[in-house]
């Protein structure tokens, strides 16, 4: 199963990086909400040559970029794309919603895959982790810094490995919304009304 990080390799063409073995950096923030969806924000700056090439492929064609993202993320449904380009500074920011970024396993544990063996995870706060990755697809010329932020409701956050040796996050999170039981609350209301009425009548001696 491919995780979100796979996507961002595909949207950036690094021919010039290869040509000069110059490393580029990409920042990816993933904010997980309390029902397992993630708001993803990608930002990146490029040098002039990279910017020219990137614009020729995706930079000037956001719909192609959106399609490419959708096609390269089979494990997710993505929507709410927002794309901002800063031509003056040769940078862009892309944000999207990724549904189902975290899942609950059979034992009711929340799981998030990193799709990376021996991922170097750094705990920034109780709910925030950093993962620095250099995808082999780009031979180390692209450095990605992931900031993964779990919701406040998440607790007991641990890193583990799945059956394929890939690093995963495991955590617990309670149900964010307690359902309203209309029958129970109607019952309480009727008891109060009936009791008050009965009490009033009793005091009036009726």
């Amino acid at each position: 199963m491919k995780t979100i990080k796979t996507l961002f390799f595909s949207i950036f063409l690094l021919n010039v990086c290869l040509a000069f073995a110059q490393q580029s950096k990409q920042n990816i923030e993933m904010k997980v909400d309390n029902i397992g969806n993630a708001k993803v924000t990608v930002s990146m700056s490029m040098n002039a040559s990279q910017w020219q090439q990137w614009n020729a492929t995706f930079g000037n064609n956001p719909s192609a970029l959106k399609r490419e993202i959708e096609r390269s993320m089979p494990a997710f449904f993505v929507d709410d794309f927002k794309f901002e380009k800063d031509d003056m500074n040769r940078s862009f920011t892309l944000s999207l919603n990724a549904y189902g970024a975290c899942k609950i396993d059979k034992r009711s544990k929340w799981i998030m895959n990193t799709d990376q063996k021996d991922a170097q995870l750094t705990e920034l706060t109780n709910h925030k982790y950093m993962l620095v990755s250099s995808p082999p697809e780009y031979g180390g010329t692209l450095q990605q810094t992931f900031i993964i932020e779990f919701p406040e409701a998440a607790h007991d956050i641990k890193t583990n490995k799945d059956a394929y040796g890939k690093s995963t996050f495991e955590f617990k999170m309670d149900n964010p919304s307690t359902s309203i039981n209309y029958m129970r609350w109607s019952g309480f209301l009727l008891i109060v009304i009936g009791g008050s009425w009965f009490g009033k009548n009793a005091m009036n001696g009726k």
Partner: protein
Amino acid sequence: MKSKLIPLAIALVGILCVASSFFIPSSSSGELEVAIEKSAFIMPAVHRVYANPDALNGKYYLFKAKITNKSDQTLEDVTVKYRIPDYIDWTELTVSGQMFPGQTLVIPCYPKFKDNITEKTTESFEKAQIEITWDGAEEDDIIEEEFGFKITNRNEYVYTGVKTEEISTWSDMYDNDALISCFVTPNDPVVKYYTQNLQEKLMKGEAASVSRKPEDGVRFLKNIYEATRKSHMVYSGTKGIPQSTEDIQSIVQQIRLPREVITGNTGLCIELSCFYASVLSAAGIDPIIYMVPGHAYPGFKMNGQYYAIEATAINGEGLGGIGSVEEAFKKGAENLQEFIQRSQSGDPRYSMVDIHAMNQQGATAMDLKDNDFMRRKVDAIVASWDGSQPVKEPIQKQPTRRPNNANDIVIPDTTIKTTNALSFAIPTGWQTMMRPVPQVPILTAQVVAPDQMTTASIYDIPVANVHQAMSTINQYFSSFGMQAQYQINGNAISGQTYSSDGSVFNWVGKAISVPNGIRIVAIGAPDYMYNQNAALINQIYNSIR
């Protein structure tokens, strides 16, 4: 009395409501919202790709389900399973221990068809059924979805799976190019048997995969052609028509499998390409299929060099004659030259399928069973080779260079050298990029290692001496925020290139005068990788002639 009975009755009803709320769960039926994104067709030849979530980045799935809990209840043990009647029994896709209100599950389905799906010779429309259940769900609550899709016959190859409305470029129309590698079947027992006979009976021994010498590879390629020529294999067409399947409109080609090309003794360009690729792969050589507008032809790569042959030169008596092996190879050379020119100029219609590279990404061959009848047919074909002489070297070299250009450069193997400029041996698997950076016209070519870090660069600088050449290179570097520091010792140069982001690239190289100036060949790697690649870099450096 009445005035007390009514409020008592109301309070009693309230108590009953409260009490029953603990026993009667809230309704959760029909509260799951399900959206299905499905594939319009399944190609049996590609069954191993569909079964592998990691193959080609998981792009080929049967369906993807988005399930959202729209109820106000937390559902326990939500289970999603599916089946395809007659093909796949009920199979569990996922079990989510809990599903919170508002939570979304996304479940892609990679179906594992039985191997005998490759025996399917007719297309059919099938239904996939999906069932979603959870703990405590009543019979009526269970969600059942179904959708239809087409399973093509095993010979059908659909060129694209991109929806018609989404197609905007040539590559969209041929989005499934990688899947052609599933029609390349080196492990087919019939193909293996044919290859062994070719190696033994026609070639009287060959060692291309062991020696890694391009001339041995070319000899093998030529002998495949010779085998087809001697067996009177002919060119013939098969059905290839535009078809619509729901939102997708694509050319659908009937591709005879390599075993069918061998035993039927006939094939179309793409079929002959798959046949050649299968035999080459079975012999341990890296096959390549070159895709160009309206045509495909086979070849191989070895030590960074690419070779091709025009397999369809066999034509047939009914098509105006049969080309000799030299004619087929010459035509292949011309095709390859055009291919290199076009692909370097960025023409997306000229693409190649590196079969072994695709295999590594999960696009592997279909399963085919041994067949005695076909083996006997192979025996009959092999008998037709008797009395013939195998093709011998020497052979003419194919150009792998830009034609007639002042900055002409050859990226040769160990035996193919330029006459007046530096050349070097390219290790296997390295990728050559001509004119990789248009903004730096003096950079004629770059050859990049599979690690994408170790790089050999060839510069042609129209100046009088090495010092001016390096100065010119530095001027170009400065526009990219880089600077080279170097030492020149005779024709040897070594140095480091510093980037504005702090990275350092170490390199060694040689320079030589050429008619139009100075040519410099430099090999290096980022400083943090240089030591571990030093042996390789020195090896290439020492091969510079």
